[in-house]
């Protein structure tokens, strides 16, 4: 301990002595470590604690996937779930939930609530109980008995002012009376964003359904049973189901995973891992920079190290001493990095819209915790070792006796040191190119996303959702009348140019647009699994014009398309291309679903495709129907306004109240806000990657500058000889810049193929990203090369100014 204390004291003295270099290195490491700490905190929240519940490791999510279609998670049908429940022995119990949304009325302002239908044992599966009141009883899972609900803590606080006598109170849910039997604990909102839970009941028809996939199943493992064992058992069960009912299960494959992994989501995981990889690269680049500085520093200390060796310091001891210096430097960088990470996290958390944050598993648990500090400490230690090990080992190898001579330079390890420093720069350039390409592609993709939506002119569009309860609006005619009155009424608001409705507008509801199967007249399916699918939209005729969706052929829907006229549909260009490739679709007949009772719809028009969400890589076939022929319950209303849409909100609410005072409207937002909220996640990733790319570029440039600068100072004597021999300034320039560009060129040559692999991966993830983007693969290397040339030019300029006489005395 005594000797370590001595080494630490000496190391601190040396760091202070070279404080300028110390601060530069600590700054570089702070960038790398800070970015890693911040990203780790995010990853920890997303990947390690997405569901902050006790004993959550024993809870397993059981979902189906469709590998052939690239669909990771698909819910299962009630019959499937009930069979699992009856046959599986690996679980203490299986439970299920289903997304839902209900209108709360009768006890205050009508409010749309995000609720979940759950099996009565759902909370037991998760290992939680209500904080107030009781859990659902088994019999409340019977049809007709499911009239109870449990509130989230947040809803209890907001809507009922934390009323302690809330239990037993009856509220109207979609017009039906429900009794509040419990309130969950503060912070519990699983599944994400839940505000209330209602019991799920299967009637006789539902219990045998195998194609109506709507249930997300969770199971609590029995003690001693592993996930692998449970999965093996479940695969046996699902294989048996597939053998018995091939039509319902063909192409589906069971996935069993810990609840945390399921809640984190594959996409979230992919982007989090991408960012973790990127910041790890940044840290490596910073380490390479610091290693280069350490090389320079220990080169100047060769004699000191030789003296220590002569006095009996072993090689290990010398390496230890130098490593202590670089670890102290890293720890200093880590302290700065923690502050930087805190700043980054504050920035990230404060810019995320709350409406989006509540849907991101783990978001609310993001903070710098003990885990993050431990991680930072380990990263700092690793950085210190990575950046210090090569200079330390190289220095400890030098020839003691040569170095101790008056003019000894320890030249034996000089060449190897040069090679290693050059290799470090090459690695820095390669890594920064990979990061730059990744960042460039993500930023470009994000820009493409923003651009593609500009055609809607979203900044003057107001959107809102409504859900007509089946109890109040059971008849089609009532829904048609409601929508007609509503659209007429909204259109009379001053400065509202037009009003329209659709099932889903682009990017609304997280970009989720529901698809359904459809049939084409006289073209029966060869195989059931080849089913045709399209997004089903029910719209008012003015929707296309209002949204600037262009007509390609035929006509738009019109007000004349009513209940008494021929059923019609307009299809998107992609549907026409996909299903009517060699024929004119106009006049052809299609039918929603495969049920003979549904009417054939005549295709009367083809319109441009709509980009629904940022994940969408290709156009999705879409089928539009007039609302008078298919009046919906759930609708998104869109208003084109003359100015800021937000100022129309109160007028819109007044119009709604004038038609149905009990009907809540929700998600009332301008479309540009909806789009922003929907793309904010990938926007974050793009912004973070851009920042990472710029940091990498700066660090790599510093690396090139540092190496060339040191090389020039080491070669002062050589430069003097060259100039004494008649070398011109231009030739010295060429010599130095040429060396720098050679290293940069090798780095780019190594980085390009790796960057191409990254680009291919990104192009499969994101709209607007091409794996062969010329800007990424020509422009960015040129930018990197130019900056490296500048970083080499500055030392070259210094080399040209060398006075041959002084340089020759330098020896």
């Amino acid at each position, binding site marked *: 301990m*005594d*000797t370590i204390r*001595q080494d630490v004291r*000496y190391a601190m*003295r*040396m760091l202070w*002595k070279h404080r300028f270099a110390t601060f530069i290195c600590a700054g570089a490491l702070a960038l790398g470590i800070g970015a890693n700490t911040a990203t780790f905190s995010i990853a920890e929240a997303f990947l390690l604690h997405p569901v902050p519940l006790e004993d959550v490791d024993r809870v397993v999510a059981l979902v189906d996937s469709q590998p052939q279609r690239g669909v990771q998670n698909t819910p299962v049908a009630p019959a499937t779930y009930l069979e699992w429940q009856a046959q599986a022995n690996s679980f203490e119990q299986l439970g299920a939930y289903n997304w839902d949304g209900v209108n709360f009325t009768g006890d205050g302002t009508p409010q749309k609530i995000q609720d979940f239908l759950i099996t009565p044992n759902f909370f037991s599966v998760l290992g939680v109980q209500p904080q107030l009141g009781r859990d659902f009883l088994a019999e409340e899972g019977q049809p007709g008995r499911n009239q109870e609900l449990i509130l989230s803590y947040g809803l209890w606080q907001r809507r009922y002012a934390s009323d302690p006598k809330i239990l037993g109170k009856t509220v109207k849910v979609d017009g039906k009376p429900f009794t509040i039997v419990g309130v969950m604990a503060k912070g519990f909102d699983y599944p994400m964003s839940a505000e209330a839970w209602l019991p799920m009941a299967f009637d006789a028809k539902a219990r045998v359904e195998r194609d109506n996939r709507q249930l997300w199943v969770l199971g609590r493992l029995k003690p001693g049973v592993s996930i692998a064992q449970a999965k093996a058992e479940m695969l046996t069960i699902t294989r048996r189901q597939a053998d018995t009912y091939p039509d319902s299960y063909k192409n589906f494959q069971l996935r069993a995973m810990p609840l945390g992994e399921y809640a984190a989501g594959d996409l979230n995981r992919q982007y989090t891992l991408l960012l973790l990889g990127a910041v790890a690269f940044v840290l490596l680049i910073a380490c390479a920079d610091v290693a280069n500085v350490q090389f320079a520093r220990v080169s100047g200390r060769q*004699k*000191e190290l*030789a*003296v*220590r*060796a*002569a*006095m*009996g*310091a*072993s*090689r290990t*001891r010398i390496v230890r001493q130098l490593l202590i210096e670089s670890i102290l430097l890293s720890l200093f960088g880590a302290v700065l990095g923690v502050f930087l990470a805190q700043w980054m996290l504050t920035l990230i958390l404060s810019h995320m819209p709350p409406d989006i944050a509540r849907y991101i598993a783990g978001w609310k648990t993001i903070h710098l915790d003990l885990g993050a500090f431990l991680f930072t400490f380990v990263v700092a230690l690793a950085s210190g070792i990575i950046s210090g090990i090569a200079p330390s080992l190289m220095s400890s190898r030098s*020839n*003691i*006796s040569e170095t*101790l*001579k*008056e003019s000894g330079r320890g030249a034996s390890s000089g060449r190897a040191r040069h090679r290693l420093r050059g290799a470090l720069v090459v690695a820095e350039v390669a890594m920064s190119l990979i990061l730059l390409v990744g960042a460039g592609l993500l930023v470009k993709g994000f820009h493409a996303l923003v651009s593609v939506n500009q055609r809607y002119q979203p900044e003057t569009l107001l959107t809102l959702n409504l859900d007509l309860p089946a109890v109040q609006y059971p008849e089609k005619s009532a829904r048609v009348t409601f929508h007609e009155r509503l659209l007429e009424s909204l259109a009379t608001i001053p400065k509202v140019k037009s009003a329209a409705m659709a099932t889903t507008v682009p990017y609304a509801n997280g970009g989720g647009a529901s698809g359904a199967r459809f049939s084409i007249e006289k073209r029966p399916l060869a195989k059931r699994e080849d089913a045709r699918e399209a997004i089903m939209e029910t719209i008012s005729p003015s929707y296309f014009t209002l949204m600037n969706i262009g007509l390609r052929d035929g006509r738009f829907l019109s007000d004349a398309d009513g209940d008494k006229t021929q059923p019609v549909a307009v299809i998107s260009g992609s549907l026409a291309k996909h299903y009517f490739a060699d024929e004119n679709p106009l006049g052809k007949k299609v039918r929603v679903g495969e049920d003979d009772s549904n009417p054939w719809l005549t295709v009367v028009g083809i319109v441009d495709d709509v980009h629904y969400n940022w994940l969408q890589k290709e156009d999705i076939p879409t089928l539009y129907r007039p609302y008078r022929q298919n009046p919906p319950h759930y609708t998104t209303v869109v208003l084109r306004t003359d100015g800021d849409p937000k100022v129309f909100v109160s007028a819109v609410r007044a119009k709604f109240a004038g038609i149905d005072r009990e009907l809540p409207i929700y998600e009332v937002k301008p479309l540009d806000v909806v789009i922003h909220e929907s793309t904010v996640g990938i926007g974050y990733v793009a912004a973070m990657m851009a920042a990472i790319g710029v940091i990498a570029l700066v660090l790599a440039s510093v690396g090139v500058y540092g190496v060339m600068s040191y090389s020039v100072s080491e070669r002062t004597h050589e430069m003097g000889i060259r100039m004494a021999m008649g070398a011109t300034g231009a030739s010295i320039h060429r010599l130095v810049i040429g060396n720098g560009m050679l290293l940069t060129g090798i780095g780019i040559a190594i980085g390009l193929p790796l960057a191409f692999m990254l680009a291919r991966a990104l192009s499969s993830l994101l709209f607007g990203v091409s794996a062969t983007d010329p800007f990424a693969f020509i422009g960015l290397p040129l930018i990197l090369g130019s900056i490296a040339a500048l970083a080499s030019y500055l030392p070259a300029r210094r080399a040209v100014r060398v006075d041959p006489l002084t340089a020759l005395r330098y020896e």
Partner: protein
Amino acid sequence: MTESNGTLIKMEGVKKVFYTDEVETHALSEIHLEIHKGQYISIAGPSGCGKSTLLSILGLLDSPTGGDYWLNGQPVSKLTISERTRIRNREIGFIFQAFNLIGDLTVYENVELPLTYRGTGSAERKQKVQHALERVGMAHRVRHSPSQLSGGQQQRVAVARALVGDPLILMADEPTGNLDSKNGEAVMELLRDLHRNGATICMVTHDERYANFAERNIHLFDGRIVEETREVSVGA
């Protein structure tokens, strides 16, 4: 510690060849040498004759290309790097022409260095460092840094550093080379005093005056021992 016959160092047929690209440079050839405990030996010769190379090999800072070398009865050719390091630390004290004090350490810390690497406890270190500095008359400068000392004072500190671990032999490489004549003579007097008190010293010098301080003078030329005189000189 020494062999029964008092031989501390024995070399037989030692040679050293440097290989640079395709050029072989024979720095030492056929060196036969014995140094007994308590002897004061000087190695003299013109510049480039191999004096420092021989001293480096004697001090285990370098290895011979051929021949045999026993230090304190132990053949050194088979020693591992860590064993050589340990012997350097415990049995050899170095004094260099350029002093080679570490500029970022104080006088005390410089002298303490060999004991630190030996793992000596702090209290014992303190006592030994104090004693060594007193022997060279530098005890009053413990907190100074080398840059605050004159050349002669720096070399005294270097001598203290060489002495502090009670080595079997002191290896001095041109100890007066960077000093003026007054300081040079003072350092030589110091070495003579140490020798009188029992220290074994092997010194490289090209200065005949200082070579005569030793009781044995070896003359090197082109890497070979060409002459050896054994008369004890009184010195200038």
